[in-house]
């Protein structure tokens, strides 16, 4: 069995948003849509204030509420835990968006481009009509993972089999891998460090782990 997860080290993340940019570049998401983004979090009250950066996006839950509510079966889950959307089936009802506690889903009603004068050359080439009027979200770069696996590569180790955000991270804060493999990079990180998951009380069993060493 395989269970792909992402580990984000909050002590390492510098909030540079390189993961955000690489995700947008890889997945050609329109303005306002960020499958991966980094939150700038300030905590406490003056003068006892802390600041950290928190990468967020689809948590690829084991028990995804988005999949449960989806009336069209467009939202599915692969055997490796990656939560998917079939753009050809989705009706764009946005029920998944209100069911997701992680604000990970987007719906774009009409084509949007960076400049009002129309799409840039790249945007025109990469525009996907199939994503208009339907739900969209992070896929853990499932196509990269699959292509890499077909070449015999290891997701989370070999860049060609690893999500773009983890590849791009300058601080080595994002790590992707197989939780079921006790020798994987993510397993070692979770074994050796303290971690939490967001909104665990909602019973979603998220596949996104945050390493955090409280100071």
């Amino acid at each position, binding site marked *: 069995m395989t269970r792909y997860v992402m580990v984000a080290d909050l002590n390492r993340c510098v909030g540079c948003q390189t993961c955000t940019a690489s995700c947008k570049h890889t997945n050609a998401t329109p303005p306002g849509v960020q499958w991966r983004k980094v939150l700038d979090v300030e905590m406490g009250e003056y003068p006892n*204030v802390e600041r950290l950066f928190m990468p967020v996006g689809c948590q690829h839950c084991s028990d995804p509420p988005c999949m449960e509510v989806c009336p069209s079966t467009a939202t599915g889950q692969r055997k490796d835990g990656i939560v998917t959307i079939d753009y050809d089936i989705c009706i764009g009802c946005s029920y998944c968006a*209100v069911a997701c506690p992680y604000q990970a889903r987007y719906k774009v009603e009409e084509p949007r481009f960076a400049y009002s004068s129309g799409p840039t050359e790249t945007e025109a080439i990469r525009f996907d009509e199939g994503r208009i009027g339907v739900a969209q979200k992070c896929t853990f770069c499932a196509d990269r993972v699959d292509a890499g696996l077909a070449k015999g590569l290891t997701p989370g180790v070999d860049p060609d089999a690893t999500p773009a955000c983890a590849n791009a991270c300058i601080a080595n804060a994002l790590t992707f891998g197989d939780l079921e493999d006790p020798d994987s990079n993510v397993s070692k990180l979770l074994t050796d460090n303290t971690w939490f998951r967001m*909104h665990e009380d909602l019973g979603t069993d998220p596949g996104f782990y945050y390493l955090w060493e409280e100071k």
Partner: protein
Amino acid sequence: MTRTKFSRFGTSHQTSWDWRAAGNFICGGAGSSLLAGSVAAAFPEAPDWRVLLAALLLIGAGLVFVWTEIGRTWRAFNVLFHPQTSWMTREAYVAALTGALVAGWAFTGIAPLAHAAGLAALLFLYCQARILKAARGIPAWREPAIVPLIVATGLVEGVSLLVLIATAQEVPSSALLAALTALAVLRFASWLRYRARMDASDMPPVTRRVLDSVSRGMLWVGTVAPLAAAGLTLAVPAIAPLAAVAALVAGAHFKLQLITRAAQVQGYALGNKLRRGHPLTMKPGAAEATAR
């Protein structure tokens, strides 16, 4: 800035569902309970066909509202693909069943078909309530107490419409007014329970403010006014429609506010269960102590 380390932050109003979704809950709730109420009032006979038609039109109007909101309108029938877990799919099937039963009664005149339609309409109302509860991203919707509240609100709307219809024909019966007042009290009790549960939860401040304003409407317009008007009806029968209108308006206002203003998203938060160890090999309950 978050006030404490584990406070939720980044809450904002959901922008996925707007007044059209509220329209489905308002029209669908009123229509389904009008259908069920008219069947109950006429039992064992079948109710007036015009009332059943009006009820179906209300349910249909609600579904049309939703249809205009979805991104791919011509794929609407894909909504039927997931009855295993999706309450939206179940709502669609039950709506179709309700319509089919009413049509069956209209063509055959077999009263039990109309009775079955009444039961199906109640099921439709329940599906609507469960649709909201399943939305785990919205604290104001996922609260389990929302289910009896939505059902009670729908029932009040349906009986209110029955009172208005009866008023148009003659003076509504005292039994109908008694049902309206009883349901209004039941709705207010459901509302108090929902509010208590929400107050005990970590709901976003905006949600709290909206619910505070809805509370006043629920009490004075949705409960006190109908009770007073129903009481005064004993002396002044012409005042009966006021009770129905007040109860109806309060319910519609509540649903509109619930969908369009109280629906703050969950937001983000740091997990307050810091652990160490591989997640798949940890023993349940033994995890947190390692970290703090």
